[in-house]
């Protein structure tokens, strides 16, 4: 077997459609034998919160309100055609109808495939989020230098 290939994705967006792209690429790559690293930062952190709906997670009153407005995986908006939150529901139903994996199914597959989840230390600090606010699959909290070291020698994407 050839040496392990590696894909590292910086998941910056908290949009439903862009997160779907992140997890489609990630699970597909892991399934064909790539080592996959996902580095969640800023809005992307919404995807790995334990509370997948809206909840007041955060350090102070301002970040708690941000936390509520941003929400988790189940309430991520689409980047286009959001229709005040109806968009993701419409897309989820279209995906189900056409037997395409939904975002939640892709995230579950990513966990089973042993994809590495990392959270951005700086963005967590700004948003008042702690490692305990995230799903246990989040392996570590990293800064740029550590992420670059992990991604070194592979392909890197920013979504």
């Amino acid at each position, binding site marked *: *077997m*050839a040496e392990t290939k590696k894909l590292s994705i910086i998941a910056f967006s908290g949009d439903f459609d862009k997160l779907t792209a992140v997890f*489609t690429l990630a699970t597909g790559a*892991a*399934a064909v*034998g790539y080592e996959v690293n996902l580095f969640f930062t800023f809005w992307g952190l919404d995807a790995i919160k334990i509370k997948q709906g809206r909840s007041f997670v955060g350090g102070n009153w301002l970040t708690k309100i941000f936390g509520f407005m941003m929400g988790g995986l189940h309430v991520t908006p689409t980047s286009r055609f959001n229709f005040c939150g109806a968009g993701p529901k419409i897309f989820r139903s279209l995906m189900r109808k*056409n*037997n395409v*994996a939904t975002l939640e*199914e892709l995230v579950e597959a990513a966990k089973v495939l042993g994809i590495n989840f990392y959270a951005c230390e700086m963005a967590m600090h700004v948003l008042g989020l702690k490692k305990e606010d995230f799903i246990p699959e989040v392996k570590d909290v990293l800064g740029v230098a550590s992420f670059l070291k992990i991604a070194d020698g592979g392909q890197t994407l920013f979504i």
Partner: protein
Amino acid sequence: MATKTLDITKEHCPMTFVKTKIELSKLNKGDILEVLLTEGEPLDNVPRNAVDQGYNVLSVEHVEGPVHKVTIQK
């Protein structure tokens, strides 16, 4: 030595090969996985990825219409 069957004829990318990979990971060495899939991307990629990852592709048979059966040994 166990034999399992996986039907991915209704799945799309990336779940076709994601489900195959997950199913293979549950098997013991020597076990057989029969994968039912359709021609096009799944037929082109599932057997090739299995070989790339060190598994044995024992056979690729045409079942009917677009459906094929790929037999993989772990």
